[in-house]
C-alpha cells in the first residue's frame, strides 16, 4: 500500500463557550464579581483518529454541527487541537473559503502575490505561475482594478485560481465546487478531477451522499463530534443512510 500522507491521532477539540462572550474588561470584572463566568465546555470533536494514504479520497459525512468544518480546520492547521495531534506529509491546499486573505484595496495582481504568500508559496513560484493564474481566473484587464470593485464571482474565481495553482499532496474541499457561473464551475470541476487523477489525497465535505459516492473511496461519519463510522465508502454510506432515516 502507499505511504501514509495524513494521520489524525486522537484529536479532541474543546471550546469554552463562556469565554467567547466576554468582550471587555468591565464586563469581565462584573462577571467575575458576580461569579457568572461559567465554563460551559463544548467538545466539538472527541477522540478522532484515522489515517489516509496517498491517493485516498475521504468523504466526511455528518449532519449540521457534527464537527465537519472544525475537523477540516484542525487538519489545515487553523485550529490547534486541545488534545491529540495531526501528522501531515506534504503540501496542503485548503480550499476552505476562497480569498480569505484578500485585501479589498489591493488590485487583483497585488492580491495574487499577497494571497499566494499567505498560502506559503515563494515569490519565484508565483511569478512563474502568474500568467496561468490570470488566464484561469478569466479576469483579463480587470486584474489591475482594486478588488473592492470586483463582483463576488470574480473574487472567488481569482481565489480558486490562486489556491489550485499548486500541486498539493492534500486537498481540502469544503463544498467549494460551486464557484462562479456554470461555465466556470465546469472548468473548476475539471481542474479538481485532474488533481484527483494525479493521485492527490482529498478530504471532501458534502451533504450530498450521491456526490460523495461519486468522488470518494473512503468515508467517515461524524455525529456530535464523535466518529461513528469509518471505512470503505460503500459500508459507511449504508450506515449513513440508516442514520438519516
Amino acid at each position: 500500500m502507499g505511504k501514509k500522507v495524513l494521520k489524525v491521532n486522537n484529536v479532541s477539540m474543546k471550546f469554552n463557550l463562556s469565554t467567547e462572550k466576554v468582550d471587555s474588561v468591565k464586563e469581565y470584572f462584573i462577571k467575575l464579581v458576580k461569579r457568572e463566568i461559567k465554563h460551559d465546555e463544548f467538545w466539538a470533536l472527541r477522540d478522532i483518529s484515522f489515517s489516509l494514504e496517498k491517493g485516498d479520497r475521504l468523504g466526511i459525512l455528518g449532519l449540521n454541527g457534527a464537527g465537519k468544518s472544525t475537523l477540516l480546520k484542525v487538519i489545515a492547521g487553523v485550529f490547534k487541537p486541545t488534545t491529540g495531534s495531526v501528522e501531515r506529509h506534504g503540501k496542503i491546499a485548503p480550499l476552505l473559503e476562497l480569498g480569505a486573505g484578500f485585501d479589498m484595496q489591493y488590485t487583483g495582481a497585488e492580491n495574487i502575490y499577497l494571497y499566494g504568500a499567505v498560502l506559503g508559496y515563494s515569490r519565484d513560484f508565483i511569478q512563474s505561475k502568474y500568467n496561468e493564474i490570470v488566464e484561469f481566473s478569466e479576469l483579463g484587464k480587470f486584474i489591475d482594478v482594486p478588488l473592492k470593485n470586483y463582483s463576488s464571482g470574480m473574487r472567488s474565481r481569482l481565489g480558486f485560481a490562486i489556491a489550485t495553482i499548486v500541486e498539493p499532496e492534500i486537498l481540502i474541499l469544503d463544498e467549494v465546487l460551486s464557484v462562479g457561473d456554470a461555465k466556470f464551475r465546469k472548468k473548476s470541476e475539471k481542474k479538481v478531477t485532474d488533481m484527483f487523477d494525479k493521485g492527490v489525497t482529498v478530504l471532501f465535505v458534502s451533504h450530498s451522499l450521491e456526490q460523495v459516492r461519486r468522488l470518494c473511496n473512503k468515508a467517515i461519519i461524524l455525529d456530535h463530534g464523535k466518529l461513528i463510522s469509518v471505512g470503505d465508502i460503500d459500508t459507511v454510506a449504508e450506515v449513513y443512510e440508516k442514520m438519516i432515516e
Partner: protein
Amino acid sequence: MKKQFKNFMKYRFLLGELVKKGIKLKYRRSYLGIVWSLLEPLFEMIVLTIVFGTLFDNSDRTFPIYILTGRLLYSFFSQGTKASLKSIRSNSAMIKKVYVPKYLYPMSSVLFNYVIFLISLIVLVLVSLILGVYPTRYVFMALVALVLILVFTYGVGMILATLGVFFRDMEYLWNVALMLIMYMCAIFYYPQRLLDSGYSWILKWNPLYCIIAIFRDAVFGRMPDIQMLLYSTVFSFGSLLVGLFVFRKRQDEFILHI
C-alpha cells in the same frame, strides 16, 4: 529552534508582502504618497518649534532638531505599538481560514512602521545639515538607539497584541497611555528642570526617554550616558522576552476570541 527558523524562512516572503502592503496602503490615493512620511514630521516640527520655541522664548537654534529627534522616535513607538495592538483583530479573516504563524502580524505591523520611520529620518539629516549640526564619531551610537527602539516596540507590541485579542478596551486605554508617555518623554521641553526636581525618576526610569536621549546625544555629538544605555538595553530585550513568552503562550487561543 531550527524548525522555527525553517518555518520563518518559508514565510519570510509573506512577511515582506505584509510589510509592503502596510506601506502601500498607508499612502494609497494621496497625491504625495510616501512623501508624506517626510512632510508630516517636518510640519509637526515647525508647529512645535513655533509653539514651544518662539512663544515660550526659547532661542536655541538647534531646538528644532531636539524636537524632531524626540518626535520621530516617539511617533514610531506610538504608531508601531498601535498597529501591533490591532494586528490580530484586523487580520481575523485570514487567521480564521488559513494557517500562518501568528507572530507575523504584529511583526509586520511594527516593521512597516519602522520602514516609514527610517525614511522619515531623511528629514532629520536635512534639518541637521541646514542648522549646522554635523555628524561626529558618536553618530554610530544612533544605530544602537535605532535597534533598541525596534526591539522595544516589537516587545511591547507583542504584549499589546495579545491583550488586544482578549480585551477590546485595550485600544482606548493604550491611546491614553500613549499620551501620558508622550509627556513623560521630554519631546518638546528640555529635561533639565524635571531632572533637577524630585520627579527625575519619570525620565530616568522611562526606557523610551532613555532611548530618545541616547539618540539625541548621538545626533548632537556627545557620548551617551552609559547607565541609560544599559538600562534601556536590558529593558528593551526584557520586554521582547516577555512579549514573546506571552504571545506564544496565548496564540492558540486567539482564534476563539476574534
